[in-house]
């Protein structure tokens, strides 16, 4: 198996530049997730890898060999589509066997492989049924079965779980991860759901407007977001982004409502060097309740939203809406005021002008 390498890949549709100069190495055997909002070019990129879209320029190679001019069938890959793309006129068995028959695999081998895939995905009882007689989750399994029997080097998934309900999505996500561990093949997966990206990926590629914004292991993107877009995209509930000012003469930052929080000297120096307005980023789970006056925020509560083990607490710092996620047992939801302490070691700062991270 070899790495998949995209070099300076561009895709134009007329005047529209859908994919812009993408350079990316997808490691062999890894689980890479292309994620981003609608229209960011992630599906186009996946389809370019599959050969369903002809790239305008650049190169796609598998190891040393360029595959950009190969037909989809010659790229040794399998793909699962968002709509499942099952043939309604064929039974489940025949759907799974379709790719093998197309490649003229001997009948005995087809039977063995389809049986194996059926066992693995729990489909053997449904072999004789037509796709319309299956539930959404079962159809998705058939689509995955059709891909895995192929023994391809590369597996592509185009938002495969987005048509499923929430519970089934969670189950299938787990199954996909297990399947990847079991097969040990390269998976490239497209989604707009950041939770799917975080939970499944070895490598996340976050795209916006056809460009890669940041790329790396999920926790690296989560803990070290390169800019405001990455910070706000990953994490649920998303990171609070609060505009603050940093006076030159004091080691502190001033929040929109005038409250002041201390910051250490080295951080202050970097922030004040940046000049102007700063965006302070803090994730909701990085607040704690405190009895102290010093180093804490006084918050007037807007609303409590219990989610079970956690309580989402909304409050405002002047016009800025802020969310804190606290353990439910620690919150008295009859309160109207609360003092919260932010974990300053896990906060992020961004330039308000460029949106880039300030380290």
């Amino acid at each position, binding site marked *: 198996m070899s790495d998949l390498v995209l070099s300076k890949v561009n895709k134009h549709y007329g005047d529209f530049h859908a994919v812009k100069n993408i350079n990316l190495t997808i490691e062999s055997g890894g689980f890479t997730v292309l994620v981003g909002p609608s229209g960011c070019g992630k599906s186009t990129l996946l389809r370019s890898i*599959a*050969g*369903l879209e002809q790239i305008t320029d650049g190169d796609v190679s598998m190891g040393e060999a360029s595959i950009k001019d190969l*037909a*989809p*069938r010659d*790229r040794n*890959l*399998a*793909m699962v*589509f*968002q*709509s499942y*793309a099952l*043939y*309604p*006129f064929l039974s489940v068995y025949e759907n799974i066997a*379709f*790719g093998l028959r*197309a*490649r003229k695999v001997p009948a005995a081998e087809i039977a063995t492989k389809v049986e194996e895939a059926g066992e693995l995905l729990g489909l053997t009882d449904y072999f004789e049924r037509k796709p319309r007689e299956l539930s959404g989750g079962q159809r998705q399994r058939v689509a995955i079965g*059709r891909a895995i029997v*192929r023994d391809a080097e590369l597996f592509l998934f185009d938002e495969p779980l987005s048509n499923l309900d929430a519970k089934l999505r969670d189950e299938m996500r787990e199954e996909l991860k297990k399947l990847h561990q079991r097969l040990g093949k390269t998976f490239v997966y497209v989604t707009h759901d950041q939770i799917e990206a975080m939970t499944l990926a070895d490598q996340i590629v976050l795209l916006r407007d056809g460009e890669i914004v940041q790329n790396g292991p999920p926790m690296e993107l989560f803990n070290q977001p390169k800019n405001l877009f990455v910070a706000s995209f990953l994490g649920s509930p998303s990171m609070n982004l609060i505009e603050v000012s940093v006076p030159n003469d004091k080691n502190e930052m001033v929040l929109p409502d005038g409250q002041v929080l201390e910051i250490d000297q080295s951080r202050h120096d970097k922030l004040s060097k940046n000049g102007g307005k700063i965006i302070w980023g803090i994730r909701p789970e990085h607040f704690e309740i405190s009895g102290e006056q010093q180093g804490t925020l006084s918050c007037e509560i807007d609303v409590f939203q219990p989610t079970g083990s956690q309580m989402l607490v909304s409050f405002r710092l002047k016009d800025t809406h802020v969310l804190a996620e606290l353990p439910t047992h620690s919150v008295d939801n009859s309160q109207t005021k609360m003092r919260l302490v932010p974990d300053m070691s896990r906060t992020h700062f961004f330039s308000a002008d460029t949106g880039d991270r300030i380290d």
Partner: protein
Amino acid sequence: MSAAGSKNNTRKRLALGIICAVVFFFPIYWLAAISVKTPDEIFAYPPVWLPKSIDLNNYYVLFRDGDVWTVFNSLVTAGISTVIAMVLGTFAAYSIARYKTGGPNFSMWIISQRMVPTICIAFPVFLLFVSLKLVDTYIGLILLYTAFNLPYVIWMMRGYIQDVPIELEQSAYIDGLGRFQVILKVVFPMVRAGLFATAVFTFIFAWNDFLFALILTRSDVTTYPVQVTGYFGSQSTFWGKIGAMSMLGMLPMFFVVATMQKYIVRGMSMGAVKG
């Protein structure tokens, strides 16, 4: 609603159903009855509603004189032209649907060719066929019916093919099929009902054509609608032969529609929902 009301309603519906059936089936029954009546019964007044005996002489005469060959001629011209129009038209439709061949309005332009009143082009077509020596030949009629039916086939099949999700084809490409195989193994099965429905209507158009068959045939490939009109004479009209020939001409259509009814209904409803 009370049980009595419901029963009453059922009776009304039944009565309405019977009336409709009589209105629609009576002409066919009358034709069938004429074909097996004796000449006396045909011209009797008051009319003989039910023939006293089945007289197959009208049919015998059609077979004896070779008139029945005109049904065969119709079968050949309508059948072969339907097959050719379906094959060419479906591939053309695929090209238009998937590759936007000819631009966005090409299919509209194609179907507009069917909107020309046929009588307007009858004379030029006749002259063309005379110069090409295609008058009174199978090839001539087959070519003409194919040309006439192609726009319809392209228009209909383009709609059915557009309804096939493109992912099914893309998935098949990735699975290892070539373009032609994708059409045969994925697109055709997906549009099977549409294919049958379109083929049936194409066949019916060719089968029922009278104008061009009248102009472009003499004796060798006369089709059955032209033959039937030959029984209306200035001195007398051969009602028995008209009835028998009409029944023979109706039989192929009856079998086609009866055996393909499932596909015709599904194909037409596929067309109905495609918007």
